[in-house]
């Protein structure tokens, strides 16, 4: 059965028609055409689909769109300030934290949730936090370095 689902996405009220069984990631990509959130494994393991739901990082492939109705969703498209990259995006750019880029939106959304709870994580803590995000190109090294750099950039007093 088709239903209309409304939610706040990247600060804007958005609504669209989907089915009750439609996944949030499908709703974002195919109904709202926000294709920055990727579908990787589709089994809640790889983390390519990570978005923020009411401020918490979640895997959008394992949530129904209708579960997010009335809630606040932030995707990778919603973190830059106009043409100015978010510090986390800037750090990935500067530290070569991606190769093919497929995992990157999920990595960035996941990493932002880490810094929310732990503004200056150790390398070990960063690696532990990325347990649910798979990268098949980089060996994670530059991703970890990017997140550490972003933490420095985002630290109070560091601009």
């Amino acid at each position: 059965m088709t239903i209309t689902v409304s939610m706040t996405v990247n600060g804007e009220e958005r609504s669209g028609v989907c089915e009750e069984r439609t996944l949030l990631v499908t709703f974002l990509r195919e109904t709202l055409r926000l294709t920055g959130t990727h579908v990787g494994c589709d089994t809640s393991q790889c983390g390519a689909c990570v978005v923020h739901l009411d401020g918490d990082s979640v895997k959008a492939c394992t949530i129904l769109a209708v579960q997010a109705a009335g809630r606040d969703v932030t995707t990778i498209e919603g973190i830059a300030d106009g043409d100015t990259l978010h510090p986390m995006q800037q750090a990935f750019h500067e530290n070569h934290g991606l190769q093919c880029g497929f995992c990157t939106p999920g990595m960035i959304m996941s990493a932002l949730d880490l810094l929310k709870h732990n503004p200056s994580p150790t390398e070990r803590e960063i690696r532990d936090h990325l347990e649910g995000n798979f990268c098949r190109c980089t060996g994670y090294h530059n991703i970890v370095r990017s997140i550490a750099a972003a933490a420095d950039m985002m630290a109070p007093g560091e601009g």
Partner: protein
Amino acid sequence: MYAFRYHRAGSIDEAVRLHGSCEDPGYLAGGHTLLPTLKMRLAQPSDLIDLGDIDALKHTATTSGALTIGAGVRHNDVARMSHSIPALAGLAGGIGDFQVRNRGTLGGSIANADPAADYPAACVGLGATVVTDRRQIAADDFFVDLFETALEEGELVTSVIFPAPRRAAYMKFPNPASRYAIVGVFVAWTDSGMRVAVTGAGASVFRVADMEAALARDFSPDALADIRIPEDGLNNDIHATPDYRAHLVTVMARRAVVRANASSDGVRL
């Protein structure tokens, strides 16, 4: 995913009433087992009743000697309660990955009763009481068999009461990919005696009486050194044989005792 009707319940009563009025319904808590199952078309419920909006399932309370956690409290929320029962918080912080812990709930986990889930070990290990919409069930009686609990049709877990232990720790040997316990052992020195609860090794969580008796005499890892549980009936899969799991139970139990003795800060309830 097959089609279903979606309901968002606003209260425990409404959820239970909805469940009773639907043909083949299911409760949707964190959804991190249910939704993957539905995506593979391995189940076809007529109705899903979303419990995510029920505030009464999200409360936590500390009373003298016990911590009550609402069934809808997420793993990451429990992981941040390290001030109350550190062993429980540590266990919750080791479930799945960070995003799974942002969705998965205590009630959903124990109602599902996956043989390799972590929470059943904490419930049985701490001698917890499971509270439902209609009664209270001792954790020892709650977990019955593989994916089978004492819950009746439509019965909803509302909270779990964890008595504070004097000392406790959980150690698991996780599958490196899924973080499910190949073997996990929760050891607790409680007001009512020693408890050793094992998850991942058998069809359901179980206690090890020999280890409990040995720890009652001497709460040290050496007390467990010569105790090996029988491998008969233990799980066998591509990750570990029954023989290996039996071995791991002793190893994890000993490590748990070491950790329990090390966390001298104990419990402040």
